């Protein structure tokens, strides 16, 4: 993984002192809250329902053991003993005090971590495929690009006061595990007909009040041109993005208002200029230098057989949580942070420390955070799997549900968030408990449920096979169902079913939707496939059946 040199290290240290000065000026009143708010947001600090919330950046979801230990330490020393992994691969602490945050950031800086630009109207954390460097279908590891984009976007003088937030994702595989089409801008590493590797750049995707699927604005950007091209997109956005209406300020609005042809034209014009000026061109040596940091560990020649274990649970776990690795004898392992009935994405400080020990014991340099709020061990020797599983089980991190119905994504919701209309975590917990039976879960198969507590869609409900949106209906928590969303390369926005369900009805409604799928599916269709084949009608009829009966 990337290692800071003296410049990166000085950068984050100075950034901490810059923020410390901003906090002093806020506490003394020299800065008003209105002035301070964008500044603290650009250091990841929100004011939430109960307390401040600090969102620490995990660039492209990659963490080392040392960094895990620091996160555990922060949780203990400054917070309430736990952290929450987010749908953008970051980690959030829910209870820091403003006066402590400069010290928290100073401690994070000692392990090459920060909270720079994890909020605010600027370029946010660059996310990437959580299987980077390990997946079989990978064209090229996306993380060197993600790291280059991270550096380019850090305190960019022209783009720190954008109309709104700007989220970038990078992927280098055929299967899109980074939800590219739902990002403001995305980079996909592709090969052209001549076999050269370059970048497809997408723009205009987004969740929120008005979800959009992004489109291609650069079909094949040559490697040296990457930053010049991305800069062109940002410049068009900064100049032309709407600033009169916060709900129309994202680039997705501009991209779809202008339309693809016009957007391409404007980006192309800026790109030509920036490229000609030459200052943002990316020499091959620089790309190679950064890529060298991400060289995979040497893979030993090992037997590709999956070891057996006396523990039946191990077998269950391998059915869902183990994914094919490009090197024989190795596997990718998903560590589920969705224990049945638990809070999705939360990890206790003891678990973080224990995972750090696990990484060290088995010679693993890194762990990943996925946007589905789980953790991933990218390079595990298959022969180590039973022992690793046993340890994960002791830690409560061995739930065998990756990709299954109980692997739910949920935002913090009204339990934590100032913006929320309804609670999301209890709904996730109840659904998880309703479907706890593992054989039922396997019968259902792949089913991604995503829950958001408000229209800001931090739970990515628009991309859920089943999406749930919490709304406030006359002071009562109500939940709207959407079906058929997908964040993969077959991206689609879920269709709203109809009127919402009360908090005591929503889990039953989800159950009826699942039953409908089980009745209608053909062959090995997943829920998503069945929905796409039969449409909303049968699901809608079944979901509202209880209401109909009650009305009669």
């Amino acid at each position: 993984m990337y290692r800071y040199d003296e410049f990166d290290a000085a950068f984050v240290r100075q950034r901490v002192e810059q923020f410390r000065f901003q906090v002093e000026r806020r506490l003394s009143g020299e800065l008003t809250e209105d002035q301070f708010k964008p500044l603290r947001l650009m250091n990841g600090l929100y004011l939430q329902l109960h307390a401040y919330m600090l969102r620490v950046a995990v660039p492209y979801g990659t963490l080392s053991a040392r960094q895990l230990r620091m996160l555990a330490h922060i949780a203990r020393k400054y917070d309430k003993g736990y952290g929450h992994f987010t749908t953008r691969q970051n980690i959030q602490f829910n209870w820091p005090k403003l006066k402590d945050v400069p010290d928290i950031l100073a401690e994070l800086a000692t392990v090459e971590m920060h909270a720079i630009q994890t909020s605010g109207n600027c370029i946010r954390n660059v996310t990437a495929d959580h299987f980077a460097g390990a997946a079989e279908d990978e064209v090229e590891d996306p993380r060197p690009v993600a790291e280059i984009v991270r550096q380019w976007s850090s305190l960019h003088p022209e783009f720190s006061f954008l109309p709104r937030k700007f989220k970038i994702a990078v992927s280098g595989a055929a299967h899109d595990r980074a939800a590219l089409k739902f990002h403001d801008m995305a980079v996909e590493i592709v090969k052209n007909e001549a076999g050269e590797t370059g970048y497809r750049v997408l723009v205009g995707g987004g969740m929120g009040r008005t979800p959009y699927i992004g489109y291609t604005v650069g079909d094949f950007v040559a490697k040296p041109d990457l930053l010049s091209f991305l800069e062109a997109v940002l410049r068009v956005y900064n100049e032309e993005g709407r600033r009169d209406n916060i709900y129309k300020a994202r680039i997705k609005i501009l991209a779809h208002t202008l339309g693809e042809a016009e957007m391409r034209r404007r980006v192309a014009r800026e790109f030509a200029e920036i490229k000609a000026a030459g200052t943002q061109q990316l020499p091959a040596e620089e790309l190679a230098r950064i890529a060298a940091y991400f060289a995979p560990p040497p893979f030993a020649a090992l037997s590709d057989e999956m070891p057996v274990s006396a523990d039946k649970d191990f077998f269950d776990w391998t059915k869902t949580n183990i994914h094919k690795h490009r090197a024989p004898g190795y596997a990718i392992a998903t560590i589920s942070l969705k224990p049945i009935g638990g809070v999705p994405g939360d990890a206790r400080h003891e678990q973080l420390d224990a995972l750090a020990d696990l990484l060290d014991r088995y010679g693993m340099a890194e762990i990943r955070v996925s946007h589905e709020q789980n953790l991933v061990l990218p390079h595990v020797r298959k022969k180590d799997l039973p022992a690793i599983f046993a340890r994960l089980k002791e830690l409560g991190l061995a739930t065998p549900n990756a990709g299954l119905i109980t692997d739910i994504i949920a935002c913090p919701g009204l339990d934590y968030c100032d913006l929320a209309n309804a609670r999301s975590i209890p709904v996730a917990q109840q659904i998880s408990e309703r479907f706890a039976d593992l054989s039922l879960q396997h019968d259902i198969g792949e089913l991604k449920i995503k829950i958001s507590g408000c229209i800001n869609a931090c739970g990515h409900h628009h991309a859920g096979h089943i999406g749930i949106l919490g709304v406030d209906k006359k002071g009562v928590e109500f939940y709207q169902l959407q079906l058929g969303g997908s964040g993969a390369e077959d991206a689609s926005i879920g269709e709203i079913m109809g009127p919402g369900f009360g908090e005591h009805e929503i889990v039953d409604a989800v159950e009826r939707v699942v039953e409908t799928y089980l009745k209608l599916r053909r062959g090995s269709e997943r829920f998503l496939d069945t929905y796409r084949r039969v449409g909303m009608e049968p699901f809608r009829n079944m979901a509202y059946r209880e209401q109909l009966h009650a009305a009669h």
Partner: protein
Amino acid sequence: MLTANRLVDGDVVYWRAGGWVEAFDQGDVFATDADAEVALQAARKSVAGNVVVNPYLFEVRAEADGIQPVKEREIIRAAGPTVRRDLGKQAHDVSI
């Protein structure tokens, strides 16, 4: 009632007799809109004094077990996350 967040640590606080308290059940209840407005104006001085941020009024009503907020959001804000009953004011979880 009138609430805000304390600037220095983000804690939820409630207006009481010209100052701020941490416990919901110790906060002043305003019988009339006029009283509430007077308090809100006074609270704005706390903002200028960098003690709190974002003071606002919210509705409460008399229930069997005492005064309770009307909105779910304020109920949760007064107590703590419903999914972690061991955290926040509900657990007498005092700031370290």
